[in-house]
């Protein structure tokens, strides 16, 4: 997995939100960054793990990577998704 060089221009906190809410938030807010910049989505609905990359493929946005969120013992697992606005 390659590590992006730059920090995301925007972080969307969708922790605790069920799919498709994280996708809706991303679709609404990706326009807030410039083309080529990164958006980070934090989510913990298991469906987000497949839906974020699938959304990027459908909408021709660039899916960069998925990273596990730092674990607090006993907390539910969550992920950080990085998406690059490509148009």
């Amino acid at each position, binding site marked *: 997995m390659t590590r992006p060089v730059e920090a995301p221009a925007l972080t969307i906190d969708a922790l605790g939100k*069920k*799919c*498709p*809410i994280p*996708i*809706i*938030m991303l*679709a609404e807010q990706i326009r807030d960054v410039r083309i080529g910049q990164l958006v980070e989505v934090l989510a913990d609905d*298991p*469906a987000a*793990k*497949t*839906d974020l*990359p*699938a*959304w990027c*493929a*459908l909408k021709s946005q660039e899916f960069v990577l998925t990273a596990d969120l730092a674990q607090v013992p006993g907390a539910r697992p969550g992920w950080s998704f990085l998406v690059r606005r490509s148009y």
Partner: protein
Amino acid sequence: MPAYSRNVAYFDAASAEPLHPAARQALAAGLDEGWADPARLHREGRRAQLLLEQAREAIAAEFGCRPDELSFTSSGTQAVHLAVLGAVQARQSAARGPGHLVASAVEHSSVLNAADWLARTTGAAVSITGVDRLGHADLAEFGAAVKHERTLLACLQSANHEVGTLQPVQEAAAACQEYRVPLLVDAGASAGRLPAPSGWSLLTASARKWGGPAGVGVLAVRKGTRWREPLPADDRENHRVPGFPNVPSVLAAAASLTATSRERGTTDVALRALVDRIRAAVPATVPDSVVHGDADARLPHIVTFSCLYVDGEALVTELDRAGFSVSSGSACVADTRQPSHVLAAMGALTHGNVRVSLPRETSPESVTEFLDMLPPIVARVRQAIRDAEVTA
């Protein structure tokens, strides 16, 4: 709105096909003639036995096997469990350790659950092999997993129960033959809809998916395939399935399979054309929607699509209000709220999905009405979820 109270169309044949009229007739006859214990030697028992064996011959003929290779179970799931556990039990050896199983990632949950159960109880290793974006099993990965020297069983469905994609069973069978690994083909989604696959060592199916009654599954074990009963001994059904066989329902299952496959020529063409219409219309009329699975090499009656930004359950509820019965999420595990393992394995969108599966005699008008109603319903559900998000 008055339209909301009437049932327009049932589009969930992949969960249960409405009972075929031939099955209803055979079921009534079976209750009259086949109620006795077929294992008994008295005349009532012999009559039940005769009816049971006639049904077995009819179903065996459809699946291209010998009657003595075929046993009746109480469900498709039970058939799968017995197939997996019995095949593994027969080939397991204490000296060589717990062994290895192979299954594609898009198998029915009964296959994956049986494999998982073996992993937990016997320590067996399980290789879940991937699929491409249309849901076809990756043959290279499947073959490489089969090649593993301790492989006891490989499992590949004939066709996918959610997206309809046909699987390369012939090629998988060739790989299994090369390494002398038995192949379980779960034909649940295709039985009665398409000619039976060949190349299998074990085959499973479920009667309610071809217009038979619930409570009848089929387990076929090819001659020469090692299989050992995984449950306490019982001499029913060739020592394969415990308990008194449901003779009337088995008769109904046989009658409906024979009738369904006789009518297949016309049903197949009609349903295929209707599914083609849905596959073309949904992406054209519903913004941000995508149709899954292979457009050509597919089951005649199943199509699944996903709409961005909606919850599949909300969509099913709204469609139900409008008179259309469809299903969503992973077939059989929708209540767990886990995303569909089939769509996830395909890398497809797992939310907002709807499976439409057409029963025989679906009218073109009902499909037209569905396609007319769908865009405004999706728009309404999308608006509702956005409104809820704003107020949350």
